[in-house]
């Protein structure tokens, strides 16, 4: 139904593509026939009312739905043209390329240093302690957290404030050097100041990584993203440049949602 690609101003290479994706939980259809192209150099936002399937769709992009026993998916999702659901796909390697930040900050019950070093260690990115130190420092710097934690790297990650924890989780995701970062409502558990910091960080990270963010805040989508997709009842209603979606939507339902008539 939705033919996404010709609507998008393709200035950037397409990083990920979804083709006719439907996702079921048991017999319930959560996502219905969604096709979308995600560019490599932008922030793409998924908006829509609660329960519209935007988080489910996001989680299918790095196969996190695999951890839910009843979830089943149809269609294709391509990363650089390669189907990530094909048999023989290495999920571990996929998730190293497509990282994820969750709704609630979920640092491991380890030190700040160990939280960031976790990914590089399990993937064997750093040979020596010095290399690992470099990776940890660089990741924390990119996540804008280094200056706040450089003297307390051995404290537990859970001792940080909510906003700092979320940036720690972003640092943890960056440390494995992904190509795409998925963010599932990363600011919904944070106060406005912490939210502003994360939004700044997203703009900064977008220079280096493709970012897909699910948000229920339309202002946030307008502030941070260049592409916006509107989901409703498991379908993708409209997808286009953020400025167009918010100023001149083509679909009546999109218009209704962004003007606050429902959702």
């Amino acid at each position, binding site marked *: 139904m939705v033919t996404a690609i010709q609507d998008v101003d393709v200035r950037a290479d397409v990083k990920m593509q979804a083709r006719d994706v439907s996702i079921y939980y048991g017999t319930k259809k959560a996502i219905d026939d969604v096709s979308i192209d995600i560019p490599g150099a932008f922030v793409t936002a998924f908006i829509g009312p609660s329960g519209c399937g935007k988080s489910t769709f996001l989680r299918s992009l*790095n196969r*996190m739905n695999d*951890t839910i*026993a009843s979830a089943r998916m149809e269609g294709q999702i391509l990363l650089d043209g390669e189907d990530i659901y094909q048999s023989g796909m290495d999920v*571990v*390697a*996929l*998730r*190293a390329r497509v*990282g*994820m930040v*969750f709704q*609630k900050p*979920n*640092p*491991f*019950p*380890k030190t700040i240093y160990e939280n960031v070093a*976790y*990914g590089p260690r*399990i*993937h064997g990115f750093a040979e020596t302690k010095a290399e690992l130190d470099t990776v940890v420092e660089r990741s924390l710097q990119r996540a804008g957290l280094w200056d706040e934690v450089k003297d307390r790297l051995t404290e537990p990650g*859970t001792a940080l404030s909510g906003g700092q924890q979320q940036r720690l*989780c972003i640092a*943890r*995701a960056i440390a*494995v050097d992904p190509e795409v970062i998925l963010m599932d409502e990363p600011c919904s558990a944070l106060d406005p100041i912490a939210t502003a910091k994360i939004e700044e960080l997203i703009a900064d990270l977008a220079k280096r990584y493709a970012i897909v963010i699910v948000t229920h805040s339309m202002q946030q989508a307008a502030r941070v993203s260049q592409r916006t997709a509107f989901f409703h009842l498991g379908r993708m209603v409209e997808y286009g440049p953020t400025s167009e979606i918010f100023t001149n939507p083509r679909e009546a339902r999109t218009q209704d949602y962004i003007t606050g008539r429902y959702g």
Partner: protein
Amino acid sequence: MSLSLLFLLALGFGLAGWLAGRARAWSFQTEGSARLRARPQYHAWYVAAWIVLPLAAFIAVWGWAQPQLVMQAVLADPAASQLPAFGFQREAILSEARAVASGAAPAVFNPAAQPLVEPFRAALGRYEWIGFVAAILIAFAGGAHAFLRLKPDFAARTKVETLVMRILLLASLVAILTTFGILASLLFETIRFFGMVSPLGFLTGFQWGPDPMVAPDAIRSDRYGAVPLFWGTIYIGAIIAMIVAIPLGLMSAIYLTQYAPPRWRTWIKPALEVLAGVPTVVYGYFAALTVAPAIRDLAVSAGISNASSESALAAGLVMGIMIIPFVSSMADDSIAAVPSAMRDGSYALGATRSETIRRVLIPAALPGIVAGIMLAVSRAIGETMIVVMAAGAAANLTANPLEAMTTVTFQIVALLTGEGSFDHPATLAAFALGFVLFLVTLALNFIALRVVKRFREAYE
């Protein structure tokens, strides 16, 4: 007999009070003047409680006091002056006379009891009447007190709820007070024991060989060194059993929480928990009849000709199997309690399942796992039947698992069922051993519960 009648009386009066209280509350309702502050049942229970509880208290006191009052009355009778002053004979005559007087025996066997039958009969009859009258008075007084307080705006519900709370509190205190009672009785006998044998020698001595047949004032203190027992207990319960139980319990918990398909889980988990319900005697059979001979045969075929048919290894292995469910269910619970966000976070970084388990789930669940292990250890060192049947009686201080060893619990059984008289140090030693065991397991449980509590706080 009269006590059971009093109980029936209490129930009857209670029921009558209940009905009267409800009828009174209904009458308020039909008069229609004001809304009742509590439903009629609460008024009914209030009255019933005021009848039954004072009566129950009276019955408890009377059940203790009445026999003494009867005895006093009988001894004051001139016929009692013939009684021998002390000892079994006096007791026997009195109890025989009482039995005949209350109708439990047809006639006296010992003629000396005959003159006492009449005084007993008179006293029993008199105090039975006094008891009945007192009970009825108390029931009426309590009932009237409660009944007269009933009013439409009487807060009967609050009173009844408070009473229910008090009864529940009392019920929970019983268990706690029992613990203190146990501790006190152990402590008392232990102090007696340490009056005869020095505590230092007991806790640090290397030789164990109580001599119940030697006169108490001629015992040799150096034969009460309990270190071999402590060693045997720790070696069997905390070392061999744990070498079996910790890996197996942990691995089964990991399998059950992380790998098992739900259908398997619903079968395996209850099956594991059945292990915890098997009577320890049955484990004892298994250890003594199956495992111990197998170990001996194995040892013999490996060239150890003098292998014992009772061995620490047999007891420890079976004990380890027995406590697998303790370890696994605690570990299972605490792994399952790690927030799934933690697991997802690890997966999202590209960690495999086993990396996630090893590096995130187990460290996060570690306090709970450790607590489970400590509870299991305290269970294992207090375990008796398996060691009685399979470990042996010899107090060996050795690290060879194929030799017979003895434990604290085994020796407690042996000492208490032995030939020594009750105030002989060889018997009292059992209490000292029990006391040490009690303290150690109490400490282990206490620490384990504290650890679990801190762990829970961390995730709430």
